[in-house]
């Protein structure tokens, strides 16, 4: 590369290159493209209406609200996935299956052995805490395979990916318990009197917690250090195995939160469908945020933004009456374009093109 040469003659070009190299460049550009596309195609996409739901409570509705609502699940997962990606240089593909397990555990604790209880057998908070514990245990299982047995994350989590939904079905004996009480559905839909979907608040709380954790603890520093070079971080007194294990357990916690939202939305669970393909979306969110999937440095806001962009894309496609089963094809095309644009080789080429064109203009001027 010629970047070592002084480029002070062309401050504008340099600035342009610097901007394109910023991590938030890709997600922001993607978001802008989507927004512009929607503005041109149909501005009513951005309309937000205040209506009343069946329980006569005020609720906001509109495509933007849907994006915020469903994007929140993805954003929570993206938080955990970013940490895992950073520390272990790989992704957890078992999150969808783990969500099924967490949801199943919540229902098991709340319903006991009955499939349609009149009252919940335990407070929701207890069920949630049990689910957190179970999800963290499964996270620790994944994490210890990765950290102590040095198995590639993709493969280590393949185990739970294969078995997870089966375990979830096994926990409840393949029954689909239904919870009738309305309080349970608050987490996935609306709290009476508040017109904004609850998952948005939950996601905001998660973001706040992770922001504080990254600010006041060494979590971010350590996981990046381990991801960049586990050997040298060990020489610096960090235990890479423990750091990796912790990131997987944090992801487990995120999974439990999403599990609660998922089962709360429909007050029951469908083991084979719940959170299907969400692992792909979560990984894409991390990739869209411009984070290296090979580990190391990460940007949490970029990942969270990536999550909402994925949901934005999904909702846009739904709006244009794309069949839900055909959705992945369109998503794939968008992802390929984004990934190709962000590939280091392509970026270098683009930068070179820019430089040569600016050189030409300088010569012409002379």
């Amino acid at each position, binding site marked *: 590369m010629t970047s070592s040469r002084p480029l002070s003659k062309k401050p504008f070009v340099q600035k342009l290159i610097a901007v394109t190299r910023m991590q938030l460049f890709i997600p922001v550009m993607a978001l802008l493209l989507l927004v512009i596309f929607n503005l041109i195609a149909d501005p009513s996409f951005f309309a937000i209406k205040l209506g009343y739901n069946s329980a006569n409570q005020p609720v906001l509705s509109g495509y933007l609200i849907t994006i915020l609502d469903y994007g929140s699940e993805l954003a929570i997962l993206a938080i955990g996935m970013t940490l895992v990606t950073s520390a272990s240089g790989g992704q957890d593909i078992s999150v969808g299956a783990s969500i099924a397990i967490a949801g199943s555990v919540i229902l098991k604790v709340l319903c006991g052995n009955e499939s349609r209880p009149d009252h919940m057998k335990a407070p929701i908070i207890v069920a949630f805490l049990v689910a957190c514990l179970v999800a963290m245990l499964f996270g620790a299982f994944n994490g210890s395979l990765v950290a102590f047995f040095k*198995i590639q994350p993709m493969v280590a989590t393949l*185990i739970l990916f294969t*078995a997870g939904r*089966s375990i979830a*079905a096994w926990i409840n004996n393949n029954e689909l318990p239904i919870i009738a009480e309305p309080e349970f559905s608050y987490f996935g839909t609306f709290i009476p009197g508040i017109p904004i979907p609850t998952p948005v608040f939950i996601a905001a709380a998660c973001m706040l917690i992770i922001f504080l954790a990254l600010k006041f603890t060494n979590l971010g520093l350590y996981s990046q250090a381990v991801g960049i070079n586990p050997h040298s971080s060990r020489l610096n007194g960090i235990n890479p195995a423990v750091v990796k294990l912790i990131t997987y357990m944090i992801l487990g916690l995120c999974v439990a939160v999403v599990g609660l939202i998922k089962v709360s939305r429909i007050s029951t669970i469908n083991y084979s469908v719940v959170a299907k393909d969400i692992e792909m979306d979560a*990984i894409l969110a991390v990739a869209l945020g411009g984070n290296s999937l090979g580990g190391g440095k990460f940007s949490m806001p970029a990942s969270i933004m990536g999550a909402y962009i994925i949901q934005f894309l999904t909702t846009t496609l739904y709006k244009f009456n794309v*069949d839900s089963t*055909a959705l992945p094809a369109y998503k794939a095309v968008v992802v*390929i374009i984004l990934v190709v644009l962000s590939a280091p080789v392509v970026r270098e080429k683009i930068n070179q093109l820019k430089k040569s064109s600016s050189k030409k203009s300088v010569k012409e001027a002379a």
Partner: protein
Amino acid sequence: MENVVAPKKSLRNISDTNLLLIITIVVFVFMYAMAIICLGSGFLKPQNFFNILNENASLIILSCGMSLVMITGGIDISVGQVTALVCMSCAVLLDKSGGNVVTSICLAVAIGLAFGIVQGTLVAYLEIQPFIVSLAGLFFAKGMTTIVNANPFNVEHKAFVAMRSTRIEIPFMGSYNKKGMYIPAYIEIGVVVAIVVVILLFCLLRWTRIGRNFYAVGGNALSARLLGINVKKTKFIAHLLCSVLAGIGGYVYFMHVGSGSPSHADGAEMNAIASSIIGGTLLTGGVGNIVGTFFGVLSLSTIKNIVSSLGLDEAWWTNITVAFMLCLFLLIQSLVLRRKAGAKK
């Protein structure tokens, strides 16, 4: 040969590839023997074994392709959905667009080739992570399958039905049923294709330059480059071969099921990865063997057979045992890798 990346032959004079291969074969033989002893009659019939082959011919082909990519240090998770896309496209071509058997085979290979070229270029020449590229490939194939045709249907094209119901009888392996009638043992055409693929790839990996390049690139891409191997081209060829094999495997699957459906081969990529791992291919690259992969598929399906004949019919037991087996083999691999690390010190 495959010792390119093996540790120093001092005390430990078996290469990783051979050690993992031996473990796989021993486990398979042991498992099958246990099944014969404990579960008796059913497993004694040769036809039982041939049935495993008949059902898994496509998986064998897919896993072989997967092993190639994994040996070069990559991964391709799109193969399962490519299979579904091939099934659906060929079904539509045969029944609704008036194609014949030959064009449908060409279509299957062409789909594989197209996926291979795109994914190979993105992985090898644009240096994007193979996982992300094939993830997008998976999504694309999944969506395309339903765009081609959303509803599952059976193919009634005559020549095709004749071909898929062709049974190749194996002499002297038949058995007598309860009435004393002789039932010849048979295999389907797909099994022949699968075995040819296994033999060809085995030769490719063992005796050709490109085969050795695969191991070298997977073992250490940097030193492979210093040795004058074209790393990008090697990776490209591996991904191309994998996708073409997915196309062929897809057609074999199509011949086995004889229908097109968006839910076909769901999760086949995970089975293929699991088979490759059980067969002793390391995901870090550089170590692996096609024969091992072949036995990996057999082990995986034998354990599924055993679980269902034990009477554990609930769907979850199969998945849980497969996952357990995967876990076991991963731990074995992890120990082998430690041995390697120990040898270096």
